[in-house]
Each structure stands twice: as structure tokens, then as C-alpha cells.
């Protein structure tokens, strides 16, 4: 069976989804069910102290027996903050090692700071984490992250939350060609065709949040994304026909025409 293999575990779904920006937890759960995702990202934040002790939590809606959590470091701007956040996540999730590292460089664009990301990746790998790392689409950086020991590299298609789609398929292709670990597109996917293109390029998976959560009908979009990722993967495995300007070889017979 064709599976996504990350840090020694196989997943039949190649679509990874975020859990932010939904109207409520019921919608979060319904969208994730429609997406078929098995890996879901979560953020680590200060707990509300005091007033709402009985309040439901995200994890009540996404039980750990059903999903693999991918705690992230969203909002971290330094290697130290990212490492600190993921150590807390590991404690929070009973020793869970699979994490998504992202270190941002700029609050306006949310472009990653790769110098801090590399530093954090080194520390986390040494500390025993399985690091899936959000990165720029620079093939050299992607290779360095692999060399450090990250278990997957996740270059952006375009900026986080932009929905601009895949802006540099050529760089992605080089990263995929060079890599001995899974390459997943993370960030920038806007609609189903973007996800399909990422998979057709040979990505092992796609991670998205806003494309689903900010759609007019998130649940329908989640289902569209599931099918787009599957279709893109199948097309990649099937091997597309070569592109040519014209073929002069019609699909119907040239003989037997009526006269």
C-alpha cells in the first residue's frame, strides 16, 4: 500500500491539517473528519486561569487515540522559544516526540527565519525529537535540515495564510529530487488544484489550515482537499504524459474515415 512514512510510522492519509481558525470545535472536528487527515497540528498556549474551569478543550474533540498530534511552534521568533515550546508540548502530550518546528522571522509576512530554524532543529534532534520542519523553499537549506536529522522538510508553497498557491514549483522540484526524507508542502495552498499540483510534483504530503478553515464551506473544502491530494498522488505515481506544443497524433484512428 502507498503510505506516507514519517519517523517510523505509516499513514494512509497524505493530507495534514491544522486545527485553528474554525468557528467552534464541532466544525473543527467535522472538517478534519471530511479531510481524512490522521495528523493534526496543535498550538501550545497559556491555559485560561480561573473563570472557565469546565470549558471543553480541543483535545476532547480530537482524542489522541484517533489522531497523531503535531504540536507546533507557531508564533515563536527565536530558536530558544521554539525549543522551550516543544519541550512543554512533549510534557503535555506524555512524551510525544513528533513535532512541527517553525521559527518565524517577521510578523507581517510570517516568513520563516531559517537561521533560527536551523539552530532549533539541531537542538531538538539532539534532544530526541522527531522534527518536521517548516522552511523556505531553498534547496540548500532543505538539505541542511535533512543532514541535521529532521524527519521531514516542509517548504512553503507561498506565505502562511496567503492562499497564493505554489509560487516556485521549480525549487520544490529540486528539493524533492535532493531529499531522502519526505518533503511536504506546508503553507500557501489556497484551493484543491494547489494541493493536487504539490502532489503531482512528487511531494509526500500537504499540510494546510487556512485553505480549509477560511473556505465558505470548510467541510466541503476539506473533502475537496482530501480528493485533490489523492488525485495528485495517483497522477504522480501514474506518470504524466510529456508536454508538447502539439502532437499531430489524434486519439481517434486516422484511417476508416467516410468519403
Amino acid at each position, binding site marked *: 500500500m502507498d503510505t506516507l512514512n514519517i519517523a517510523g510510522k505509516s499513514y494512509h492519509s497524505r493530507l495534514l491539517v491544522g486545527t485553528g481558525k474554525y468557528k467552534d470545535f464541532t466544525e473543527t472536528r467535522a472538517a478534519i473528519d471530511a479531510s481524512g487527515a490522521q495528523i493534526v497540528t496543535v498550538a501550545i498556549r497559556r*491555559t485560561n486561569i480561573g473563570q472557565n474551569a469546565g470549558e471543553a478543550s480541543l483535545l476532547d474533540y480530537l482524542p489522541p487515540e484517533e489522531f497523531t498530534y503535531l504540536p507546533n511552534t507557531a508564533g515563536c521568533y527565536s530558536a530558544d522559544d521554539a525549543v522551550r515550546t516543544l519541550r512543554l508540548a512533549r510534557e503535555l502530550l506524555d512524551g510525544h516526540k513528533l513535532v512541527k518546528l517553525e521559527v518565524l522571522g517577521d510578523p507581517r509576512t510570517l516568513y520563516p527565519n531559517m537561521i533560527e530554524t536551523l539552530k532549533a532543529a539541531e537542538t531538538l534532534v539532539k534532544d530526541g525529537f522527531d522534527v518536521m520542519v517548516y522552511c523556505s523553499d531553498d534547496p540548500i537549506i532543505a538539505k541542511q535540515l535533512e543532514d541535521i536529522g529532521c524527519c521531514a522538510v516542509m517548504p512553503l508553497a507561498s506565505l502562511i495564510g496567503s492562499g497564493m498557491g505554489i509560487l516556485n514549483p521549480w525549487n520544490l522540484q529540486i528539493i524533492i529530487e535532493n531529499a531522502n526524507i519526505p518533503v511536504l508542502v506546508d503553507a500557501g495552498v489556497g484551493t484543491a488544484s494547489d494541493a493536487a499540483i504539490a502532489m503531482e510534483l512528487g511531494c509526500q504530503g500537504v499540510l494546510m489550515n487556512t485553505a480549509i478553515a477560511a473556505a465558505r464551506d470548510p467541510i466541503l473544502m476539506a473533502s475537496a482537499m482530501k480528493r485533490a491530494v489523492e488525485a495528485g498522488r495517483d497522477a504522480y505515481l501514474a506518470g504524466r504524459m510529456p508536454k508538447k506544443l502539439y502532437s499531430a497524433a489524434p486519439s481517434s484512428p486516422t484511417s476508416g474515415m467516410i468519403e
Partner: protein
Amino acid sequence: MHLLINGNSRDFDHSSLTVEALVTLLGLQGKRLAIELNGDIVPRSAFQATALKAGDKLEIVGAVGGG
């Protein structure tokens, strides 16, 4: 006892408190959370044995929706 919890100043009428007792006082018992005390993680298994002192700085975190 004066503590700084998640950036907020809090005063408790207790002369001694463990992390476990604080979690209960805050109504967080049984919740999935992780705690940092003065920058170091306190493992859940050590909540009961870890005593707090005035001026301690705590971060109490949980998982929330995010991408």
C-alpha cells in the same frame, strides 16, 4: 503567597503550596497541561513533591487550535 502565573500576579492565603495544590486551587485538576516553574519544566509526576515559594514564576500551558 505571591505568584506570577501566566504573566498575572496572584496572591494566595497559603504559607505553603505544592504545584499539585495550586493546580487544584486553580480548578485545573484533571486537565491536560504542562507547567514550567521559573523556566524549568515540572513533570506531572513531580507536581506533588514540588513546593512553591513566594515570587515563583509559572507558565501553565495547554493545546489549542493552530496550523
